[in-house]
């Protein structure tokens, strides 16, 4: 079964190629159906292939396809172990639902076929990323998802903001990729290969802790770029210019979690450096808090979710940085469901509101969109961490494990807890402003429930958000931590974080649920009733910290004015002053110099033959003088 694992990648890839040539001709809805069925088939294949892992009898396998760049140990080799299985299933599973949803969402778009080409291509790229057996192939997937992300963000290319957002996403990702590349250089220099087998088996044989710190920090830079962590988070909110299913699939459920996956995959490297681990965790925690505060103030329905995604990714980084790899992956898994759900729900709303994204013009949609609202309600409970929904189990496992580490991690736990509170506030506000309260629709907008092709994926994702938490509860019996057992073979050699003993986890759970409830209660009261929007802290003219939050801490302005603008000025100076005047100037000066010397010598050429003859004769005499003086006689 695993021998043909490449089929999982090949299916969506073939779909992409096919749709590239015939997608537009195929048109609605067949292009979508083709795309959905390829990735759906991939999901089923992966599910079957992962069968042994479910029963606990499977073991990791490497599948060699063909040599790619053999001198670097970067060949087309796939690794099939529980970790890649989880990722594959998440990508194909959630991906299938989002593909399905897109059939309805992209209705009427003139480039309908092209959209599914790109979506399928993304799925294939992401699968390369998670199935790779070496850092080289991982990097292939890593960059290709960046490409698909670029293509899909700027899908509506006639909109300048969309084109700019796509470019920004790709370039910011590339900054991280440079870090990743440097990490790979260090790996190759120390291990002479990029294959996981050699690098991750027992890295301490090859490298010291210091080298490990260097490698992992560089890899972390790459991960931060892809997973939108500080300092490279700022592309993700802009990426919401893309169609909503794209936001759901790429910028919530799958691509952005690649960084988390990579850290978990390279766990044995990260384990060698306590400093790197601390950095990962700290970056995660601060990103979580930072993004959550910005999310409090957004008025675009999707941007709230974008910052929320950044914040949740922060949790995952916090988890893997603490050594709680399985908890991090678990959160990745549950988050894929509830965040995709929330995005798709917001897409459903946007669809219903005639492409309106401003929450100031929504409200009261609960009655007109009952299915959407119901599923969003589930998503809301899941993300703020109300038991027994999925978010609770994963988030609280992370918080408990972080707490258990103690020390600096204790502080990070506090940040995590505050973030949980803020998450409840902004998500409740989001629900309030969108679905509850009074309607603030523009004239001529008549919201309606979305068609079944869109609501069915919503329902499926809602079910997942509600139930999949139960596969990893810390209890015995039926509610045993199945997910953990499933993944454990991938982390055998890694020392994992442990839960605090005794009743502490339960106390911690109560605390965080209480925080979530507090946040939800506060937001419900604050944004309820008449004029909810005006009272919401989004109005103009605020001062102090709110103003900063309102503008996303001016990060975009700072980057624009302190990095991009000077960069352009330096480039312009180099091009139009240094290059043309100094470098080319000296070339031209040499040419001019030759010309000037020629000018000086010019009068020597009198044109009188007899002058020339005289000079020739003088030469003869000169030669004779030389002979005589040398004594040649």
């Amino acid at each position: 079964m695993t021998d043909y694992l490449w089929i999982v990648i090949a299916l969506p890839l073939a779909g992409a190629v096919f749709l590239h040539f015939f997608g537009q001709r195929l048109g609605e809805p067949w292009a979508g159906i083709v795309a959905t069925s390829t990735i759906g088939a991939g999901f089923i294949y992966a599910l079957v292939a992962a069968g042994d892992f479910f029963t606990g009898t499977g073991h990791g396998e490497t599948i060699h396809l063909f040599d790619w760049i053999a001198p670097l140990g970067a060949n087309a080799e796939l690794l099939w172990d529980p970790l890649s299985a989880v990722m594959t299933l998440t990508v194909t599973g959630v991906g299938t639902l989002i593909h399905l949803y897109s059939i309805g969402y992209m209705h009427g778009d003139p480039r309908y076929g092209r959209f599914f080409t790109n979506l399928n291509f993304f799925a294939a790229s992401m699968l390369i990323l998670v199935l790779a057996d070496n850092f080289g192939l991982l990097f292939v997937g890593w960059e290709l998802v960046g490409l698909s992300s670029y293509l899909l963000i700027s899908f509506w290319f006639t909109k300048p903001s969309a084109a700019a957002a796509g470019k920004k996403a790709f370039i910011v990702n590339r900054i991280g990729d440079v870090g990743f590349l440097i990490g790979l250089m260090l790996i190759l220099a120390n291990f002479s290969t990029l294959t996981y087998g050699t690098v991750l088996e027992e890295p301490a044989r090859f490298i010291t802790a210091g080298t490990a710190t260097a490698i992992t920090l560089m890899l972390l830079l790459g991960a931060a770029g892809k997973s939108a962590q500080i300092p490279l988070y700022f592309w993700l909110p802009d990426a919401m210019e893309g169609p909503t299913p794209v936001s759901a699939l790429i910028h919530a459920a799958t691509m952005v979690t690649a960084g988390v996956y990579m850290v978990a995959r390279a766990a044995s490297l990260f384990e060698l450096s306590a400093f790197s681990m601390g950095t990962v965790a700290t970056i995660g925690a601060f990103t979580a808090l930072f993004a959550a505060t910005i999310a409090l103030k957004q008025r675009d329905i999707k941007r709230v979710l974008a910052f929320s995604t950044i914040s949740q990714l922060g949790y995952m980084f916090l988890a893997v940085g603490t050594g709680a790899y399985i908890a991090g992956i678990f959160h990745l898994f549950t988050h894929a469901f509830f965040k995709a759900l929330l995005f798709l729900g917001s897409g459903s709303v946007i669809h219903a509101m005639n492409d309106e994204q401003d929450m100031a013009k929504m409200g009261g949609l609960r009655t007109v969109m009952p299915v959407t609202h119901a599923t969003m309600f589930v998503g809301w409970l899941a993300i703020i961490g109300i038991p027994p929904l999925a978010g609770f189990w994963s988030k609280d496992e992370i918080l408990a494990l972080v707490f258990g580490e103690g020390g600096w991690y204790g502080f990070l736990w506090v940040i995590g807890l505050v973030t949980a509170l803020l998450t409840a506030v902004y998500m409740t506000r989001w629900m309030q402003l969108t679905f509850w309260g009074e309607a603030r629709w523009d004239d001529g907008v008549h919201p309606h429930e979305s068609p079944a092709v869109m609501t069915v994926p919503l329902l499926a994702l809602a079910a997942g958000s509600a139930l999949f938490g139960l596969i990893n509860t810390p209890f015995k019996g039926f509610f045993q931590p199945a997910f953990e057992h499933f993944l454990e073979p991938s982390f055998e050699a890694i020392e994992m974080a442990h839960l605090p003993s005794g009743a502490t986890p339960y106390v911690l759970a109560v605390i965080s649920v209480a925080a979530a409830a507090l946040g939800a209660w506060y937001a419900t009261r604050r944004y309820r009733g008449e004029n909810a929007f005006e009272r919401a802290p989004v109005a103009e003219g605020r001062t102090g910290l709110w103003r900063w939050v309102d503008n996303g801490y001016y990060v975009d302005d700072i980057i624009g004015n302190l990095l991009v603008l000077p960069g352009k000025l330096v480039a312009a100076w180099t091009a139009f002053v240094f290059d043309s005047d100094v470098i080319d100037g000296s070339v031209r000066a040499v040419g001019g110099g030759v010309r000037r010397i020629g000018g000086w010598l010019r009068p020597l050429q009198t044109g009188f033959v007899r002058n020339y003859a005289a000079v020739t004769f003088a030469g003869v005499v000169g030669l004779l003088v030389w002979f005589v003086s040398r004594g040649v006689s």
Partner: protein
Amino acid sequence: MAELVIFVLFGVIAIAGALTMVLHPNPVYGALGLMATMLSIAVFYVVNSGHFIAAVQVVVYAGAVMTLFLFVIMMIGVDRAESLEERLPLQRQLAIGLGVVFLILIGLIGGNAWITAPEAAAAPNGTVENIADLLFTDWLLPFEVTTLLLIIASVGAVALAQFDARRRGGEE
């Protein structure tokens, strides 16, 4: 003794002819002077046993070439005296100075030794047979090349004349 007389006699004629050519304002006299010089040189060839080249000197140089010169002088009508005034600065001084220095240097060399090689027992005999022997053995390739040169020269002369005629024809 006879050779000394011949040398002095014809040496004076040769130098006088050469000076006439350089100094006489009228090129016709110059040409005649040069002809005298060439004939004298032919005599020296004979004295030095260069029988064949002496004949060639008389026939080709003194005969054909100098006649051609005279013909051209007549044809383009410069057979009148020209001004010997020098217009190029320093040219005359330079020419005379260089000539003097050259002669002094030659004299310096002559004062030491003209020829370091030992004198041969017998002078070579430059008869037609002996010259031909060398020409058609050792010097065959250069000899054939000279034929090419002559052909090119004659073709060139014809082409120059014809080109010029065509231009004039076009103008008229």
